[in-house]
């Protein structure tokens, strides 16, 4: 993906595990923390997570930001619990956070963005039965990735224009033109998608995205 450079995960035993499996496992961790937040469970999850993280051998740079965020949350939570409750409660809170953080970081460190994206989009396939074409889902995501850099650049230009006028950049003065720009663009991008045969693929249904018929709509 070319949205922004993401560091490739280092080789290791976790690389062989499918992204979909890892995501489901994380979901399982989340459910456990929510339903059975006993210290023994939390400790086990944290331990497994720590082990997995070590096996993934993450680069410090890729880990710094999320780890700092989790660390901050742990400190704040522990602080509040120490003040309002007792040490045991504070410890349990920190354990909850580690039980969630360590496995999550392990998955992030051992799975490439492409794999994660493919896994999530694969989850869209069964929805064909409900009228969502997986190719449409994939195209929507790809279009977003395609145009985010351009939209960021446009937002930057709008910001600079305001500063050039000596004003501090205003929210609506940026958001409204940006949105109008994006919407007018979407009409033309839509035409390109049609002209390039996206809907000539064969059988697919897109009821989920179908608009409600507006009265007097032009063909």
């Amino acid at each position, binding site marked *: 993906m070319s949205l922004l450079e993401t560091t490739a995960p280092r080789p290791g035993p976790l690389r062989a595990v499918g992204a979909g499996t890892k995501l489901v496992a994380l979901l399982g961790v989340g459910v456990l923390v929510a339903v059975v937040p006993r210290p023994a469970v939390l400790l086990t999850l944290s331990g497994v997570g720590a082990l997995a993280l070590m096996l993934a051998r993450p680069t410090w740079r890729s880990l710094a930001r999320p780890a700092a965020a989790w660390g901050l949350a742990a400190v704040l939570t522990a602080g509040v619990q120490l003040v309002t409750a007792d040490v045991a409660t504070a410890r349990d809170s920190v354990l909850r956070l580690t039980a969630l953080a360590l496995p*999550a970081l392990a998955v992030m460190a051992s799975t490439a963005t492409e794999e994660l994206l493919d896994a999530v989009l694969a989850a869209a396939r069964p929805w064909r039965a409900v009228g969502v074409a997986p190719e449409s889902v994939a195209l929507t995501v790809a279009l977003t990735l395609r145009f985010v850099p351009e939209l960021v650049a446009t937002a930057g230009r709008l910001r600079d224009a305001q500063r050039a006028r000596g004003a501090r950049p205003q929210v609506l003065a*940026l958001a409204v033109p940006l949105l109008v720009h994006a919407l007018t663009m*979407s009409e033309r991008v*839509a035409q390109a998608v049609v002209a390039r045969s996206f809907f000539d693929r064969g059988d697919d249904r897109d009821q989920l995205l179908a608009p409600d018929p507006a009265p007097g709509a032009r063909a």
Partner: protein
Amino acid sequence: MPETTRARAIAEVALMAGVIVALGLVPPLYVLGLPVPITAQTLGVMLAGAVLGARRGALAALVVLVLCVASLPVMSGGRGGLGVLLGPTGGYALGFVPGAFVTGLLARRAMALPSRTRGLAMVGACLVGGVAVVYALGIPWTAVVTGLPLRTTALGALVFVPGDVLKAVLAGTGALLVHRQVRVEQMRPAAEDDLARPRA
């Protein structure tokens, strides 16, 4: 032509998702009179619902979450990864989807009102969808993740309410400004509209 309308749906959702991401990557912006700048991503989510309607607005928010799960830096400030969603503030992020949806439902009703009350109703839509619904998910989520009691996480969330209320006001106003310039078919009220707006 039916294919063009379906393509339009895909493009609108994708580009709106792009706007939500872009608004999260832009440095904090100012509001007239206030000395403190605000972040704009939640504004983007409210706008998604208010401008595109419930279904497409929610789908745009969902696309952003999908990219977040894929470890792309799409959340406010360039954060990403499943850790963000599993973390203490994950509920607020997940709340984007139902938030945009509810905003869209109410915004469509608002569009059908006379211009005198439309503005207020639009802001109301953003308040209910963009603030109430999001907090309804965010507050309990924080409690589960941190083990803090619900009352504490609710009190903690109070700090952010004034900022988010301001964003709802801005979003409601902004959405109407956008609707004046661009025609969004699914948001047009059933009755005749007074202005002839150019087809985007």
